[in-house]
């Protein structure tokens, strides 16, 4: 399972990617989509919504279960992924690129330092699989 080196991660399996300056994309990791199975519906905050780190901001529904999405960082939503409206399954097929959930403008970019690096996340997944 591939883990992009330049991304940051949460223990609830969201990822953050810096797009430019203080704009980041948020998404769901490959591990998460694999565990959920076929994703059929996605609820995300809309453009202009403020999100707060650690708070539930949306919902991912797969054919077999529903799972909350937690904000990995605080900021303001500046873009929604229209592709998800037509085909939420893109999260299954391309979780790290086409399947992004929202783009967020972040005030304090130092928040990212508190998140796991790709190396940390890989180690974390290893521990989960052992349990």
């Amino acid at each position, binding site marked *: 399972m591939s883990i992009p080196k330049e991304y940051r991660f949460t223990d609830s399996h969201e990822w953050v990617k810096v797009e430019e300056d203080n704009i980041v994309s948020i998404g769901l990791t490959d591990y998460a989509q694999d565990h959920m*199975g076929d994703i059929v519906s996605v*609820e995300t905050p809309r453009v202009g919504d403020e999100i707060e780190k650690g708070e*539930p901001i949306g*919902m991912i*529904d797969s*054919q*077999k279960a*529903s799972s*909350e999405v937690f904000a990995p960082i605080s900021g303001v939503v500046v873009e929604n992924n229209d592709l998800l409206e037509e085909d939420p399954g893109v999260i299954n097929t391309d979780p790290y690129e086409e399947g992004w959930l929202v783009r967020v403008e972040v005030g304090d970019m130092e928040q990212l330092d508190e998140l796991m690096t790709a190396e940390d996340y890989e180690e974390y997944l290893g521990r989960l699989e052992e349990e």
Partner: protein
Amino acid sequence: MSSHPDVKRTALYEEHVKAGGKLVPFAGFELPVQYEGIAAEHHRVRTAVGLFDVSHMGEIVFRGPRAAEVVTRLTTNNVTNVKPGRAVYTPVCRADAGIVDDMIFYKKSDTEWFVCVNASNKDKDYAWFVEQTHGDCEVIDLSDKYSQIAVQGPKAPELLARIFGDDVLAMKPFWFVMKQYRGQEILFATTGYTGEAGGELYIPNAVAAELWRELMEKGADLGVGPIGLGARDSLRMEMKYCLYGNDIDDTTSPLEAGLQWTVKFDKGDFNGRDVMLKQNAEGLKRHLVPFVIEGKGVPRHGYKVFAGADEIGVVTSGTMSPSMKVPIGIAYVKPPFNAVGSRFEVDLMGIRRAAAVVVDAPILKKDR
């Protein structure tokens, strides 16, 4: 997933592994939740034919000269005043009308019934049956001896006829016959839990895997495939068939669950009759209704239901309907919100509220 020491395997375990089934512990058994994917398996059953390993289900026999009295008392539906060779779906209630379990009674003769019960309730059911029988007839738990394969879908009758003969094509829903298969007696029933044609086959463990393989081989040109528990759940939800532990339990009555058609007040006395007569006279405080979500948001068991600021009920089952491609569910709601066409909102774990409208059962219409 690591194997659990107490988890049993069915006689078809090797077949699931070979077919790439994703196995999970369920009701004390290691069973496939899916193979190729829930939606694909769901469509296979709605358009062709699918095989389900439901060997985890329990099988219990009532036998003896006074068995008819016993099963009349235990059940709410009429399981005695039907011909041998007929199957009857019925709740089994306590005195307070709470549902001990829901099950199918197969009447073999005027003195013998073969009963299929839910796996998770089997031990509870057996204890209840023994207690309520007061020694008036034999109660025999055959669960460890039987496997069960459900064959469901529009092509299921054709597949079954290829193995068991064309006479099975003349069987109406909820009939059964005893058949020989490789020297063993099996119970061949036209029952099911999907809303499709087909049957449920109760087979001695020794020949279960052989029958599974033969069904797979002889059904290849019909599009047969194995179906996991995930699609079993979405298929039954589209029909608004109750799942014990989700939609019904010890605290719900058959009347509240919309199972009035299974309660025969005029058949004589039975467990729960007095309380249900009282419930009918006083009016029910909640009703189990099927609904569809308008727009996005998949309802799940336990989600709260609101009408404006008032909490009026709770979701008991929900999924994205693979056939209709809209979110659907089942919920207990207070009257008058049970009326078809009533509108309410489902709270999606505090994220948002989704608009819902009550529909007739089944949720998936036959003329789709």
